[in-house]
């Protein structure tokens, strides 16, 4: 008795097999879509050590809600929505931890990261420290548009909001980012290298 392993079939067959939690289908589903989901999580959260766990959480959530998938042609954007949901929850947990550290620094000692080993790492950390200061909805708009590189319409769909709402959030995010980033010396080279830097002047 040999277990069924690799699943082979089209997207419709794959979705049906996922509903039955066929282990081969889960592996294929993951292999097909995990790189894109990981890009979204990394864009939203940066070099967070919990990203692999969160990636797993996205797919577990997707399996739990697979029956709700209406349009099988839009699996990728559906997963992006799941990723945003998971990232948002993680950011809120991190915010609570930082708030807690104000009262009890010892309990959050483990949250401190190791000192960055390079200028690029330091700049990356500073960049995400700036994003940490933003409201989560504006942060998501910013990272989906500029770091993950989604189009306005795809990014709005991933955030489950209208295009108009997304544009408003994005505009606010851009303003906040420019003001906050300009106060961080480590980010100066990144900001000054842009040849069409219009917003900084406006900031």
């Amino acid at each position, binding site marked *: 008795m040999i277990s069924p*392993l690799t699943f082979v079939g089209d997207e419709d067959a794959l979705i049906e097999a996922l509903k039955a939690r066929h282990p081969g289908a889960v592996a294929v589903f993951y292999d097909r879509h995990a790189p894109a989901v990981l890009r979204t999580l990394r864009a939203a959260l940066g070099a967070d050590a919990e990203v*692999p766990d969160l990636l797993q959480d996205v797919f577990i959530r997707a399996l739990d809600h697979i029956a709700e998938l209406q349009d099988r042609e839009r699996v990728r954007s559906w997963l992006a929505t799941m990723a945003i949901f998971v990232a948002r929850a993680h950011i809120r947990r991190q915010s609570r931890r930082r708030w807690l550290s104000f009262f009890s620094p010892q309990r959050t000692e483990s949250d401190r990261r190791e000192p960055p080993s390079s200028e690029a790492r330091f700049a990356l950390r500073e*960049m995400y420290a700036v994003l940490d200061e933003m409201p989560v909805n504006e942060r998501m708009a910013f990272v989906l*548009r500029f*770091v993950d590189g989604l189009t306005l319409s795809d990014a709005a769909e991933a955030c489950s909001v209208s295009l108009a709402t997304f544009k408003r959030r994005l505009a606010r995010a851009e303003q906040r980012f420019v003001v906050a980033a300009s106060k961080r010396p480590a980010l100066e080279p990144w900001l000054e290298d842009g040849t069409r830097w219009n917003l900084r002047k406006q900031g």
Partner: protein
Amino acid sequence: MESPKTGLAEVGERIRAALDENVDAAEQLQQARRQLLRRVAVDNAARVRAGWLGPAFTRGRQAWGVSLLLGGLAAVGLWRWYLEPISFQMVAGAGLGRLGDVVEASGPEPVALQFSDGSSIVMHAGGRLRVLSTEANGARVLVENGGLDVAVHHERLGRTAWSFDAGAFSVRVVGTAFHLAYNSGQRSLDLATREGLVLISGPCLTEPRAVAAGERVQLECGADGELRIATDGGPLVPRPELLPESSRPALPPEQTTPAADGVTTDTPEQAQAAVKAADPKAAAGDSAPNHRAWRDLLHTGPRSALLQAAEQAGFERVCATASLKELVQLADAARLEGRAALATAALRAVRQRFPGSSAASTAAFTLGRVAFEQRGAYAEATRWFSTYVNEEPNGPLLGDAIGRLMESRQRSGDKQAARRDAEGYLRRFPGGPYAAQAKRILAEQ
């Protein structure tokens, strides 16, 4: 209309580049994949248990009717249920499992077995086991190779009767949850108990060794009879004082005579000596060939005795007359014993006698493994893995076959073909177990 590229888009690109440079995406993908598949296997095991409890519970409630007659019948039914051996099934498989059948996790995903008493076994990738027998309060499982996570559910009154045989070791379950890994090549057992207690016994031990919750022990019964033990992840050290003083025979040394083409074979005299050490009847001088003896040893083993009995009956004749299932079992036994020539003969017989079957294609894949792993014959392995890919373009072992084909071609010097295989593999299985190797091949000049 999209706005033109601004400085912020360039900042975004720099962030992406910095993330790619400082965070290993491939490692993150692999880590999450392993965790996800393990979690799905365990969740699936729990779902099967819930399904089984429902109908049984309903039948039980319905049986306890108002009349004495129905009550009596119900009592008889309940008593039979209490005494009835437990059953099991593969999660996501079809139907109940069968005693003695090989259960193998030959792909990258773990495999879960769920038992009707609520116990479960999650076998890691690369593992092989057989459920040899079941009782009302347990089962006997033969672990041929690999790692398991076991959770025993103590539902019924009385002593639990769960045991696991792994090579020369026997693990009796007194507690509930443990991890067991057996390496058939090194004959070593690695056991860590999470809850309760397990007892390990074996020819290398004077008395059963208890492993309590939170403890981990590794035991190795060497081919020279030496016992080595490590505790809690420390180094393996010889422990001759724990060896029994009885006249229990030492394990036969694995002596082989290399043939001219590099294939290792046992001489008849060496094989006979090995059988005498393992089989008391042979040691007592019962050397008359028994043409039915090999069938009796198929399920009870040991493997060396099975193969010797099959050779005594004429291995070629056995391969010509055995059923498909028997042939596959013989091939498995030969492969696990490192008897490449016998394994090859049995697998070729499968292909000759049952052409066009899925078993024949699987035999091609296994022939490739034997050629690669036991003989270092990479060109031959390439031919067999190619055969599988051609015969089973959508087969369950396809990912494995393409990955191994890529590796065989690389090792046999066909770099160009290996690169093509690597590109094909990454297109279909970007996060698969051979992805890292495929990328290395493509990165080479």
